[in-house]
């Protein structure tokens, strides 16, 4: 994969994530972690090769099929990409509205989720008035609100304290237990080490190592 006419940012990638699995991808800055996630959430196309998602080659899928695929993917973007003109509640409910769900069917769930991520008192607030950690939690709530089949998170705990990082990780684990495949790109080696989840090590656009799952139970969370 490359951007425009630039050099390859990802090369010779060949890996699969089993449905319902939980992986971390890590590596130094510029290794291609965000680019790898972009390939999976259909924000970029590989210059060669294929990306298979939910049994489909997304590089061959017609444009009309992609919105349906994207609705099955939850993404926590590194830059969060919150919509500043929408309230916290409206931002969190966005994927459900796009999916065509009726407000009456989901508003209590959204309120519950926001309360769970610690934004129960901030549902009216506009993103510009939220602190960095609050914005990050809102981005996470938006990514998981529609129970996606796969959750991709780019540095999801970068701006939160340890306690909130643990809560967020528990949320990811809970979703994973319910069947969501989770892939988290992070520099947080402590989080990775304590989680006991398999890790893809990305260096210079290549996967140079893939660790096996830790023998600890799959529900293990960092202390």
């Amino acid at each position, binding site marked *: 994969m490359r951007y425009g006419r630039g050099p390859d940012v990802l090369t010779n990638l060949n890996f699969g994530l089993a449905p319902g699995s939980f992986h971390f991808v890590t590596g130094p800055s510029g290794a291609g972690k965000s680019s790898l996630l972009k390939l999976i959430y259909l924000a970029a196309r590989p210059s060669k090769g294929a990306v298979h998602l939910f049994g489909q080659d997304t590089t061959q899928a017609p444009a009309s099929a992609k*919105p349906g695929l*994207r*609705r099955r993917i939850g*993404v926590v973007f590194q830059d969060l*990409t919150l*919509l500043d003109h929408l309230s916290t509640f*409206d931002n969190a409910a966005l994927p459900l509205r796009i999916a065509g769900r009726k407000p009456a069917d989901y508003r209590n769930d*959204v309120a519950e989720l926001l309360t769970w991520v610690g934004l129960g008192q901030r549902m*009216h607030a506009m993103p510009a008035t939220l602190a960095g950690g609050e914005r990050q939690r809102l981005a996470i709530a938006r990514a998981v609100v529609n129970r996606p089949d796969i959750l991709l998170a780019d540095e999801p705990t970068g701006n939160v304290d340890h306690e909130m990082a643990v809560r967020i990780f528990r949320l990811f684990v809970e979703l994973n237990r319910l069947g969501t495949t989770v892939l988290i790109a992070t520099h947080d080696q402590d989080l990775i080490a304590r989680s006991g989840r398999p890790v893809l090590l990305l260096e210079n656009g290549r996967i140079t190592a893939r660790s096996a799952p830790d023998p600890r139970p799959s529900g293990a969370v960092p202390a």
Partner: protein
Amino acid sequence: MSEMFDPARWRPAPFLPEKETRDGSLIFVVAVLCFLACLTAMGVLAANRAAAGWTGQLNGEATVIVRPKGGETPDAAAARAAEALAGTPGVTEARALEPAKAYDLIRPWLGDVSDLEDLPVPRLVAVTLDGRHPANAKQLNAALQSQNVDATVDDHSVWIKDIQRAGGLVRWLGVMVFLLIAAAAAAVVAFATRAGLAARRDVVEVLHLAGAEDGFIARLFLTRFARIAGLAGLIGAGAAAALGAGLRIAGGGEGLTPALPLAWSDLAAVLPCPLLAALVAAVAAQVTAMALIRDMQ
């Protein structure tokens, strides 16, 4: 202390911001261009009417210069010519002009001459032609010759081609100026729409990646920019119509000037403006949004 949030009372907010700071300048620019386009359209209609009036007037009239024969008086010769012409097919009316009228016609050329009446000024017969089937110079000459009247028929054919050409030129110039202004207005609407939409790339990106259909995203922008341009078109058209009405009232029966006779019906030319502005903005928004989305594929 912030109000408690009640999910049961929550209503989804619009996906796009309802108002943006740049909306005011966009509305102003589009309204001004729509105003100019509407004024030009009204001007074109008035110019067209003026040109039609000039040629119609010339087509509908002829002048006959009568020279008395033998011992006949000029007045008698003119009366005989008028009588001969009045019965000619294609002539509605033939009227011998009083000598004073003929003197009035030549006075500007000769100045204030005291013994003007002593000059051998020919008598004139004013002929009003049938608007639908006007008699031509040949038919008028034949009618005069049949009554043995020595006369020259001036059916304005010397002028009429020049006037028609000038009228045509006025019409085409008006249409071209209108098209130019309308095209400029359309280009500005399209450009402003593109700029406004590009500034909202973040919304396009979020909606796109959250699984919104391309058409759904494009429709959001299409509706928003069509509404803004339609409002601006309404303001511009309303201002142009108000100015046109003012000129019509101030100008009396002939409109702004006799040379540009604005009619009340010309004000209707502004009616399509809001719709056209909205349409141009809608197309520009649709094309731009789809291009942005394509970039994200």
